């Protein structure tokens, strides 16, 4: 029955991560020397420690050696982690999701052999996936012709008992940290890309695999616009063994659609964690900063700003829990207990808008300090803009919701 109570395990897990963030991550993440430069170094030690706490394999089933949490629990925990550092959370979240899908669903017993062991045991073993569900034009095709889903430029061919992978991608999540890449490729010279997509396992040390460390490229640093540790990758005739092809077609992948939905929700939870970090720092400040003869929190104008922030975060949090729980229990959509809506998209859009507003209000609480690079708040603002204006373009992102509504014939359910 309807119940909003979290389990003792969930509450305890959340507290553990909260303490971990407070004691281990925050001091490093918000150190002025880290904040001042354009390029913030990735906190690899923190990532390893988070792995130690089980976060990298939080979604992996217990039988495979993971924690076996559901998506909602993962969202709760990743939100906490993100309140410490967004990039750490994005990297861990991506690995956790791919790890679960790969090892619990896609990989064969034969293929998993040494890989699973390494994944479970090595704290720095991250995963990366060239995202096949990312639609460059989502929304823009509203009531028009749908453009092709895949604009893949990575090809494969069989040669001398190997697969040879060739091509590049400008933007692969987790590329800087991943030890193992799941690569979507189509047969060379094949025109019908969509129908013939295959997926390959490529290890980091494969000769010919190049990863562009944009983050260290000063010239482009201000133009970099990403969370986590994505980068461009290139496959220069990478040879991989024949058994490193997954038994998974693009059609099957889309049929599940799990990766896209779940990744969207994990990102929303991380975005929310960022918003909480912005709120917390501003809220603390309003209680110590004195102007007008009193702490500034005591001024009506600031009180209203604080309330506005709290309301937005509370709404976003409530909705992310809902969307994640529905993702864990899709059967609930059949009995009209919830509205037939793209919950993950609503969670993502609402959270991105809300957190950007929260970050801007929070920055205003700091007065002139709100634009100083050695203050965490300015990086929160920056991060919030990245969440709002990434995924190619947020302009048309609501249009698919309208399309779905029409399909559902007017929201018959509540």
């Amino acid at each position: 029955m309807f119940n909003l109570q979290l389990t003792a395990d969930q509450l305890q897990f959340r507290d553990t991560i909260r303490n971990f963030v407070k004691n281990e991550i925050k001091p490093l993440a918000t150190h002025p020397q880290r904040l001042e430069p354009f390029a913030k170094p990735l906190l690899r030690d923190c990532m390893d420690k988070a792995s130690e706490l089980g976060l990298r394999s939080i979604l992996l089933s217990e039988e495979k050696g993971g924690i076996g949490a559901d998506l909602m629990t993962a969202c709760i925990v990743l939100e906490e982690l993100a309140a410490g550092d967004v990039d750490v959370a994005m990297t861990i979240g991506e690995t956790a999701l791919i790890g679960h899908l790969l090892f619990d669903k896609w990989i064969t017993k034969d293929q998993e052999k040494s890989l699973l062991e390494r994944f479970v045991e090595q704290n720095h073993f991250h995963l990366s996936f060239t995202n096949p569900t990312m639609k460059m034009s989502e929304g823009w095709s509203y009531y028009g012709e749908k453009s092709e889903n895949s604009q893949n430029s990575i090809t494969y061919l069989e040669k001398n008992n190997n697969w040879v992978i060739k091509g590049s991608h400008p933007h692969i999540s987790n590329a800087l940290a991943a030890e193992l890449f799941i690569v979507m490729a189509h047969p060379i010279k094949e025109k019908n890309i969509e129908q013939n997509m295959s997926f390959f396992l490529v290890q980091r040390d494969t000769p010919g695999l190049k990863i562009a460390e944009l983050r260290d490229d000063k010239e482009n640093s201000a133009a970099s616009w990403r969370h986590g540790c994505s980068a461009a990758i290139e496959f220069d005739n990478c040879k991989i063994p024949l058994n490193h092809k997954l038994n998974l077609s693009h059609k099957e992948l889309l049929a599940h659609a799990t990766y896209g939905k779940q990744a969207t929700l994990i990102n929303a939870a991380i975005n929310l964690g960022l918003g909480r970090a912005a709120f917390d720092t501003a809220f603390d400040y309003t209680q110590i900063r004195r102007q007008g003869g009193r702490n500034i929190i005591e001024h009506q104008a600031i009180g209203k700003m604080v309330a506005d922030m709290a309301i937005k975060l509370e709404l976003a949090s409530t909705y992310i829990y809902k969307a994640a729980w529905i993702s864990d229990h899709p059967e609930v959509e059949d009995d009209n207990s919830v509205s037939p809506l793209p919950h993950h998209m609503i969670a993502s859009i609402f959270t991105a808008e809300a957190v950007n507003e929260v970050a801007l209000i929070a920055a205003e609480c700091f007065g002139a300090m709100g634009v100083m690079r050695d203050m965490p708040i300015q990086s929160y603002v920056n991060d919030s803009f990245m969440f709002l204006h990434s995924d190619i373009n947020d302009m048309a992102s609501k249009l698919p919701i309208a399309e779905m509504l029409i399909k559902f014939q007017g929201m018959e359910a509540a």
Partner: protein
Amino acid sequence: MDFSLNEEQLTWQKKAREFANTKIRPISMDRDQIEGGFGPWDWSVIEEGSKLGFRTQAVPKKWGGEGTGFVTQALVMMELAKGDSAICKAFSQNWKWSHLIVNACNEDQKERFLKPFIKDHRYLIGRGITEPNAGCDNRFPPKKDPESGYKLKAERDGDSWILNGDKCFIANGSVGSLFLLDARTNAKVDIKRGGTLFLVPKDTPGFTVGKIFNKRGWRFYQNAELIFENARVPHANVIGNVGTGSVKAGGGDTTGGDLFGDLELAANAVGVCDDAIEMAMKFVDTQEKSGKYLIDHQLVQLSISEMHMLTEALRSLVMRVAWEHDQGKRSAIGVFMVNYSTDVIQKVTKLNMKVHGAEGIRINPRVDKLVRDSMVWSHLAGDTVLRLKAVSKLDFPNAWSDKKIPLNTTQAAE
């Protein structure tokens, strides 16, 4: 009524546009992306601009300056800011304080400070009001706490004053040759009676520059900490009388809400909006989504339309206030204008970001820069305190109507 520009105004507008296009814009992004607080600064563009009269716009011709009016100054700032908002501000900051010197200083002081200012292309002026614990309190000294507000101590010693204390976030702090400093000559009464304004040259013994702030926006523009350790300033450098309150002494008020201050930020904002619109228009006119140019998508049209709409409303308000200020009319409308410029610059630069979106893991760095620059307004021009302040000035005359509503109180709530 006649809104057309005269020959002098058109000439300056053209000159500024050319300088912005040929000298400012080409270095704008490079300077912005240099790390550190001082790093982005560049003397050569200042010197070149100074030779064309952009440093000395506001000094009357009889003192060797350009002697332009507020309308011309607004037009020039719009053009310079379109090239780079921060570089424009590095110029116009000098106009602000030359206005003050011209209006409030005695002939001896003008002789001693305006003449060297005119001569030296690197001579810049700043004003030190803000201190770590005195921000809003300088604008709205709370009645219940007379000791609040700036605390930089000035003690009389014969024909000199001895200054001790710190200022922070001071504009042109790291590059200025002269500072107008608000100091406390009597700490027991409020700053309206205990405050005094001093002219303090950079080479004053005991005066050093501390931390140079590393900002998220307006990176070229310098803000620094000023440290005074037994700095000795001659009594002849007191502006007006001792203890008249530095606001009164300055012939304006501490927020830049004098005739020039509001105009400066609002005109600068128009330039940034023009830049954003030009960028957006070029982009939507050349990029395609789902088989159409972006401009042919309704959602893009609505965004472009809003960018223009807000910018034209702001431009109209700025030109009106510039004219009113040329007539010597001081009113609450100046404060409304600067508050409004905050709303507009932030909405317009955000729409530009929205229209551009991110491209993979990159964003057009100038799109990001405009958003970062616009953030500065929250902390200068549109913050809540200044919006409250507007109300205290409401008993205003109006060029086009004679409404005048008596208020029981002109005091803002504390």
